[in-house]
Structures are given as C-alpha cells and as structure tokens.
C-alpha cells in the first residue's frame, strides 16, 4: 500500500522517518526496489493563480492536464509544452523528469519557466527557493536545479511557473523532403532565420513540421514568407495539430508501453551525426525543439545505445522503460552532481541518477 500524505507536513514526516523513499510515477507496475512508495495524489491543489501576473503556483501532485485547463480558461498556457499530459502525468513528475515538448521552441524549456519550488530534501527539511514573481535573483537557483533531478535531491511539493498568453491563431505546416539531409538543411536554415516559430521538428524520413502562432490575420502572410524562404509549398497546412505524421511512440502523448524512450539533448549539427548512427536501426525517432533534442524509442539493448551515444559525446535520459541507469551515454556532469547530492541527500534516500536502477520509472 502506498502512503498517501494528505499535507506537506505529513510528507515531511514520512521523509524524515524513511531510509529510502520514492514518489510513485504514473506507471502502474510495482517497483522492485524496497523503497517506501508514496503517492502525492492528495497534494493536488492550485495554491495561487494570478492571471494578471501571468504566474501560477501549484502542488506537485496536480495533473499537468488540469494545470493546463485552468490556464486555458484564462487564455494562458505553459510555454514549455509539457509532454505526456494525456497519460495523467503530474506537474511534479514533469519537473522531476525535466521534460519539455516541441512547442518549447518558441520561448524556452521547463527550466526557463520555473520560478520557485518547495521541496523536502533527504534531511527531511522543507525548503523554499526561488520566488513567485517573474524575476528574482536572490539565493541559489534551486528551482532550476530541481528540473531534471528525477527526484534524487528531494521530493517536490509545490512549484511556481511563469506562464504566457495563448496566441489566438495557430497553424501547422508540413514540408516533406525527399531525403533526411534536405529536411535537415531546411531545419538549419529556418533555425537561423528571423521567423519566430512555435515548433520546428524533423522526422527521420525528412518531414519538417512547423507550427506558428500569432494575432488574428497575421499567419497567412507569414506562411507565404516561409514558403518563399524555403522555396517550396507546404505539403500540409492545417489549423490543428497534425501528430499523425509521427510514429505513435514519439508523439509524446503517452510514453510507450514497451522498450525505452530516450531524451537525447542534441544541436542541429549533432542531429546529423545521430541520425547517421541510427540509420539502419528501426528505432522510431523524432528530432524536436528545432534540433535541440532527439526522442528515440529504443527496443534493443540499452547498453548498445548508451555506447552509441557516448561515442558521439551525447548524453541520454531514460524517460520510460527499464535501463541500467537513468542517465546513459556521456555522464560528464556526474562529479558536480555527486557534490550536490552529498549536500541534499547524503544518506541516499532518493536514489542516484547515474547508479544502476531496476527501473527508470520515477
């Protein structure tokens, strides 16, 4: 039976008294470790939403989709485009896993929008860092540190975000290129251009997916400008998202039921190298955020993809599925991580990102 703390105080005492503890993720499988598993489902409220301030503070157990619908009711949104919202992911898990979606291309990823965080460290201390206002330089930026920490520094109880207004008009364009290289060329060219795109993704077949948003009446003119810049007409031009072009496992709505989903930070140049290395594998993949991340759905040995990434000096984060460790490939950040870990969780209550784990579900 999971513990289901009803308040932050209850959560604090659970952490204080545990020797090993973890928050249940959205998966249903039971974990093999001996950790105390807790659920944050009771910590699911909005603490403060100030639409005029464009800021929101929520408890970590709140479903991301609920945060999104609360904001949408006021014409606002989370610009980092949290993925997997449809599978019931919580906002705490989104922060812990450090996940941003394709539309973060416009204004920035999760780290760029998290303002404040309240968390319980391995000592059982309840710590507040950052603030609720959109700008704040006092104290260490622990909110950013918590993004992607996979809960290994502490359990996130609350977080504050900066949010933005939803643009009234959106369009999705698809340009199908005959070859990956041609699509990649267009991606690089657009990335350097002054076009302000909401999303810029590329498939391994060479399809370029562009999303743009703006004030009413402005998008048609912008689309013509993009078409003449790329010297070709879009093969599809819709007002809706057009996710059907992606293999289901990298649509980022639900994490795949089997295999391992990897997030691999890249840049437009390393995308080319990664695609060459993956050509021949049948792993579904998607180059997103303008070429700054690759989503790879891997079904073979994780050790193999880990050494493939390491050879390219790339690091990968296991987002779902079993794996030898959560961070694979290049692990250059580990020495610094270990120091922070010793400060916030010296007894190792929360698990280690680089150490062998039975399951990467966090």
């Amino acid at each position, binding site marked *: 039976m999971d513990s289901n703390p009803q308040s932050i105080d209850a959560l604090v005492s659970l952490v204080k008294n545990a020797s090993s503890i973890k928050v249940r993720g959205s998966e249903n499988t039971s974990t093999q470790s001996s950790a105390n598993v807790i659920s944050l489902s009771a910590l699911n409220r909005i603490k403060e939403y100030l639409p005029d301030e464009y800021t929101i503070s929520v408890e970590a157990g709140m479903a991301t989709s609920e945060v999104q619908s609360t904001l949408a009711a006021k014409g606002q949104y989370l610009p980092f485009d949290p993925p997997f919202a449809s599978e019931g992911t919580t906002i705490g898990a989104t922060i812990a896993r450090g996940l941003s979606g394709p539309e973060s291309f416009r204004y920035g990823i999760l780290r760029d929008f998290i303002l404040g965080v309240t968390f319980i460290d391995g000592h059982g201390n309840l*710590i507040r860092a950052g603030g609720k206002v959109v700008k704040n330089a006092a104290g*260490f930026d*622990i909110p950013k540190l918590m993004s992607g920490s996979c809960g290994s520094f502490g359990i996130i109880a609350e977080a504050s975000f900066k949010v933005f207004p939803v643009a009234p008009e959106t369009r999705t364009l698809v340009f199908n290129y005959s070859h990956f290289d041609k699509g990649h060329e267009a991606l690089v060219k657009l990335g*350097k251009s002054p076009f302000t795109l909401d999303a810029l993704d590329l498939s391994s077949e060479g399809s370029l997916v562009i999303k743009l948003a703006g*004030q009413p009446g402005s998008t048609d003119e912008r689309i013509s400008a993009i078409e003449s810049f790329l010297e070709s007409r879009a093969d599809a031009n819709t007002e809706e998202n057009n996710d059907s072009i992606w293999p289901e496992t990298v649509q980022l709505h639900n994490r795949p039921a089997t295999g391992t989903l990897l997030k691999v930070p890249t840049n*437009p*140049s390393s995308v080319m190298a990664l695609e060459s290395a993956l050509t021949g594998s049948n792993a579904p993949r998607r180059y997103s955020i303008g070429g700054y991340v690759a989503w790879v759905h891997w079904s073979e040995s994780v050790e193999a993809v880990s050494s493939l990434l390491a050879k390219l000096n790339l690091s990968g984060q296991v987002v779902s599925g079993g794996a030898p460790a959560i961070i694979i490939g290049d692990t250059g950040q580990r020495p610094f991580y270990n120091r922070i870990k010793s400060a916030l969780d010296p007894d190792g209550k929360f698990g280690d990102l680089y150490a062998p784990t039975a399951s990467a579900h966090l």
Partner: protein
Amino acid sequence: MSDFIAQLREIYPSERLYEDDARITPYVSDGLTVFRAKPAAVVMPVCNDEVVKTLALCHAHDIPFVARGSGTSLSGGSMPIEEGLVISLNQLNQILELDPDNRTARVQPGVINTGISVAAASHGLYFAPDPSSQTVCTIGGNLAFNSGGAHCLKYGMTSNHILGIKVALPDGEVVELGNDSLENTGPDCVGLFVGSEGLMGIALEIQVRLLPKPESYRTILASYDSLETAGDAVATVVASGILPGAMEIMDALAIEAAEAAVSAGYPDDAAALLLVELDGEAAAVEAEFAALTSAIETTGAKEVRAAQDENERMLIWKGRKSAFSAVGRLSPDYIVQDGVVPRSKLGEALKAISELSADAGLRVANVFHAGDGNLHPLILFDAKQPDGLEKAEALAGKILRLCLRLGGSITGEHGVGVEKLKYMPDMFSDTDLEAFRRIRRSIDTKEISNRGKMLPGKEAPALSDLGPHPLEKAGIISRM
C-alpha cells in the same frame, strides 16, 4: 600568507601579479562604491591552467578569493575580501568558437557582453541579455549575477541563454556543466551555477545561446501625468495578451537627467514615460502593434508616440540606457535597489516609494524594467553629510521590505552581494539558508570562493541601519 604570495610568484610574472598599493587601488571596490576593502594581491591569469593552479593554491592556504570581470556589480559582488586574492579575468577575453548553424558561441569569461553580439552580427545572430552596462560588463559577471536587462520579459535573464559552463571549482577541480544544446539530461546544474554570485568557483569557458535578430521592431513611448498611472498601464498591457520584448518606465527625474545627458527628445512635461517595444516577424509585429495601440489608448496616456524609423528607435533607447548614469550625475552619491513586485502592484509600489522618499527627505529617481515588475529606485544622497549614507540605506531597506510585503523579491538582477545580506532572512527561512550553505560547502568546503557574499554568515556581519558597518568598525572595510 608570505608563503602563499611566494607561490603565486611562481605562477605569475610580476606584470600580472599586483602586490603594490598603486596597482591594487583600482580594485578596492566595485559598482557599489560606498564600500571598499583591500586585497592582499590581484592576479591576471591568461590561461585556464593559471586559474586552476591559483584556486588550488588558495584552497591549500585557506585564502579567500573573488573573481572579477569589469567590477560593475552594484551590490558589492566583486568587492575584494580583505587580505584575500582578486582574480581578474579581463585577459581571458577570447571568443573561442562561434557556430551559426547551432546558434551557439563558446567564450572566455572576460569577453564583454556586446562583444558577442558584434561577433555574431554577420550571421544575423545576437546575444539577447542586455544589461544597461553591456558595453563594459563581462559575460563572466553576467553569468555569476544572472544579470537582466530590458528584454527579460520575453527573452529571460542571462541564465536562459547559458547552455554549458566549464568551471574551476574552488578546490581546483575542473568540471563540465551542461552541454551545447538547449536541452540537458539530469538536473540543471548550469541553472544552479548561474546566479551563484561567484560562490562556486570560476567559470572558465561559457557556451552561450545566440538568437536570430528580430526582423522588425515597433517602439512606442507613452507619457503620463503620474508614475502610478504609468505603473498601472503596464498591468493593462500585460493583461491584454500581448508579449512585448521590453517595457520600461522612467520618472520625471530620470527623464530630466536623460534629456540633459543625451537629448533623447522625450516630452518635457511628463511625470512618467512608458516605453514599450515589440519585436519579431514583420507581419506578426504589425498585428501586435494594432492590439498594443488599442490597449494603450485605455490607460489615460497624455501623449503616445511611435518611433518612425530605426534612428528614432535608437534615440529612445539611448535615453533609457543612459538614464541610470545620468541620474547618478545629479547627486554626489547614490545607491540603487532592484527589488521586484508583482506587476499588478507596480502603481501601488511606486506611490509608496514616493511617500517613503518624502518622509526620508531624500530624492529618489525611478527608471526600471516595468514589464518584469523590477524596480530600480536610485536613492540620491550626500555621503559627506554625517548620516547621509545611513539615511539612504534605511530608506533602501524600507523599499526592499515593501517589495517583500507585496509578494516580490529583494533583487531582480543585481544580486545580493554584500549589500542585501541582511535582507536574506526576510526572504528565506533559516532552513532555506542552511540548505544554501550546505550546497555551498559541498562545492567549497573551506568557503573561500567570494566569502562573505550572498549568504549571511560569520564572516559577513549584516550591514546595519544604524551607524557604521561592523566590518568598518573593525577597520576591515571602509567608505569612500
């Protein structure tokens, strides 16, 4: 200490190791000129290896050090530590790599902020963070203080533009944080390092993100009868759903000073000016401009002007960017605070500041990043008056506590340094501060990296409202 200096001499030739008063004196204070402290020596490394050896030496001898860029910190961040070492990074000033396809540049810490944009210009790219001091301040200083500027509302602070850092930790270990991507795996250690005010060692190489230059700008200047109405106008614009690149406010004193300094052509009868700038694709900007104009119409502006061409736009900005130094010239001394308030409370905060200013009998000029709610009250005073500085600091303290009361922060971009140490406990609990200290000690066991800054502790008694600073009484720091 003499042993330490002797070993420094083995690393540095005498022209890059200052031990004499004549060469040390320019380093005794930073942009917060009311305080100074004398270091034992100043060194000027020209390569990473020298920095690493220097830190290992400081660690072995327990000598505190402070990294220094251009010394423009306004909170005492780069003020030396008495009898410590100043490590001046101005000679580590190369752009090591600029990759237009990836829109990144790898630079040394002593590169001047605008230098990056100049180098990137031929590729149609630029470095977005634009503190008003950008023509002199270094990227290392920007990074350590997570500096802001006029365009944070839309583009974020320095932190949002730093992708990776090679760091020499305070014990000489060299680590890599982040990478050359916008995304990362694991915790955002770059995010933690940025804004850590020099407490975590020295950034040796910095991977920055470059943005394509916007295709088009639209800049509006609206004048108001009161500062409060201008503050309320910001809330109206923000609530209208448009996301301007910048929103800045100047009050009458700042307008007058800026006019005198650079003749920006600002209206001369305004109690406050609101500057709003849109940027992006031409078609998008024109559509936003229409929406912005109708939002501004409802705010009770006396006059609204739009820059007609790039020259007019640059002139508007020239006035704004020079205002800060121009106001400084109105008075023998000034201190500037940079507290933040929720944007909807700007009007209320500005009204309260003018009342506090009247009560204290001190003039306060306001020129600030309104879109972020980031105030910059410049408190004018005369340090030659017996209690001149004490009165100014007392007023500053009241303003910061007002910001906290309204739900804001004690600093938006200038950092805590030594100046705001005593307000940290107003913003953070003992538990929070203890967590900061534990993190610090995991990186710097001896707490030698910029000791006495940001985290209130034994070595840094809080500045006091009343009478001289305890460090002054002890003869450790002194006022100019």
